[in-house]
């Protein structure tokens, strides 16, 4: 019980300013929750220049990925035997391809743009799946407690103690390499981070008076989860999503690079690097272009995630 404003503290007729402050403030707010509303543009303007740049770059990449068919200068799968491994046009390439062509004469820039779409799409879906699994598991674990809690936490321990790459590789060996399987497998990465966060938050929030009151009024577990727990974990979840996104992107590109992720003819950034590796000596642009896309993407999102973590000020374990 946190009865801060007990009338007994007040002396006759005199009210000290501190006590008045306390009684004015919103009752029962969890620590870290702020009353003032911050909209996105205020935060964006307050961000350091490097973060603004990253966010703009990300927006640009997202738009490029969404509108790939309109942005890409060529058909990504159009082969041309006469223009194989042609260097970028600004480096003496003859065929006028901005980032050159690959071993089958396909335009590297167009392939990068389409790959961006595939890689970002897979990572985005993967992150969302992981988040949903984790949040649901965390809520179940925290609200139901007992054996459910123990069982879920054991699975979390399991996930933490087995190198995740192995789980994915075995999954691929069992289910084959289709894009759906890949999305589901990378989706199971990092769900335990959300589960632990949510569970901790549930255990904290459950102790607050407003939740006690809600329970007393007959609120169901579902209602408590929806009205009292989800709003409280929204901001740390956003931070976790941003921090997990690059690592899922890297997981997918590593798998595709090894040749066991996205399968041809679909292009993915990692796959392009993997295919270009054989021609690296003579045609370095096959590797450098998609690799730069990967590095740029992960660096930007990682920076944004680190910044968000500091701004929102969540302590993630």
């Amino acid at each position, binding site marked *: 019980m946190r009865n801060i404003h007990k009338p007994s503290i007040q002396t006759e007729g005199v009210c000290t300013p501190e006590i008045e402050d306390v009684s004015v403030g919103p009752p029962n707010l969890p620590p870290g929750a702020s009353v003032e509303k911050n909209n996105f543009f205020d935060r964006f303007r307050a961000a350091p220049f490097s973060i603004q740049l990253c966010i703009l770059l990300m927006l640009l990449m997202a738009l490029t990925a969404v509108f790939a068919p309109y942005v890409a200068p060529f058909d990504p799968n159009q082969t041309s035997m006469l223009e194989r491994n042609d260097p970028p046009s600004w480096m003496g390439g003859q065929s006028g391809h901005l980032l050159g062509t690959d071993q089958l004469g396909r335009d590297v820039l167009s392939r990068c743009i389409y790959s961006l779409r595939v890689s970002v799409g897979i990572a985005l879906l993967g992150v969302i799946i992981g988040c949903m699994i984790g949040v649901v598991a965390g809520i179940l674990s925290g609200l139901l407690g007992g054996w459910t809690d123990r069982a879920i936490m*054991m699975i979390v*321990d*399991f996930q933490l*103690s*087995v*190198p*995740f*790459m*192995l789980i994915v*590789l*075995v*999954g*691929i*060996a*069992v*289910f084959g390499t289709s894009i759906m399987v890949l999305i589901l497998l990378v989706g199971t990465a990092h769900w335990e981070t959300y589960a632990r966060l949510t569970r901790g938050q549930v255990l904290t929030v459950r102790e607050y008076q407003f939740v006690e009151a809600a329970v007393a009024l007959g609120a169901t577990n579902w209602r408590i989860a929806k009205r009292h727990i989800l709003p409280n974990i929204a901001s740390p979840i956003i931070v976790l999503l941003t921090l997990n996104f*690059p690592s899922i992107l*890297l997981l997918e*590109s*590593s798998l595709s*690079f*090894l*040749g*066991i992720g996205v399968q041809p003819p679909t292009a993915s950034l*990692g796959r392009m*690097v*993997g295919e270009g*590796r054989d021609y*690296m*000596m003579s045609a*370095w642009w096959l*590797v450098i272009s998609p*690799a730069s896309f*990967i*590095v740029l993407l*992960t*660096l930007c999102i*990682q*920076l944004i995630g680190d910044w968000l973590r500091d701004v929102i000020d969540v302590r993630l374990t």
Partner: protein
Amino acid sequence: MLKFIGWRFGRALLTVFAVLVAVFLAARLTGNPLDVMYPDGLPPDQEQRLLVQYGLDKTVPEQFVNYVRDLFQGNFGISLREKRPVADMYAEDIGATLKLAGCSFLLSVIFGIPMGMIGALKRRTGAGRLVMSVAFLGYAVPHFIIALSLILIFGFYLHWLPSTGNATIWHYILPTITLAAHRFASIARHTRSSLLDVLSQDFMRTARAKGLEERVVIFKHAMRNSLIPVVTILGLQIAGLINGSIIVETVFSWPGIGRLFVGAVMKRDFPVLQFGVICFAAIVVLVNFMVDILYVIIDPRIRTEA
């Protein structure tokens, strides 16, 4: 203390058992191993004989019991492709992996902790920012891109270092650096944040107020306390090293178990995968178990109740 160790050990065993069950179920999901061994099909009488020989005609729980019993008897299965015991295949390759992983681990600790210290103690200077930027790069750039960049620069253009195989000591340099990059970055970042936490503690002010030399303050009072969380991180590095070595060994054609594993995924050679997962999981669980105990020994404040 003994109770704590026992409890932790029980949990470690439970995790390994869970891995066993998961791997077994995954193996059953792949369908009939005979289809992989004989893709062209078999006459029915031969198939029946082989089913009995491999124990595949029994029920699933019976198969599981047999499988666990075989494991305890040191019988880890036969590779479907190479038709020889998987344990032998791993025994041949594990040396190369251990050497690579060990070198990388040492390198990342030797550089990571001092870099993290610089990042924390000189955080407002150029040196501190530079160090942490390097760590950030190491953290965000994937292994295979670091590997390819190093091969391009030092292998192809400068012709300084070899980039495939593990024949000489020179072959170790590029893969070791690649594998160490992530670990170095993560150790440096953790050392920095943990040291920053300690630096703002009251006892630091007390130590300085006592008139101790700055060297003593930093190394005896700050570092000792800030290294405690770093030790836990070192335990978690093992899982990261295994993840990384799968990629690094493939890129550098390093004859280790990471490459063996990737090859087995491509050939769908399940017994090889099965043994690999069990081994890797057992290593990680064992290391984390030791770290937990080490943690309690280093820091007596941690309660040993489970």
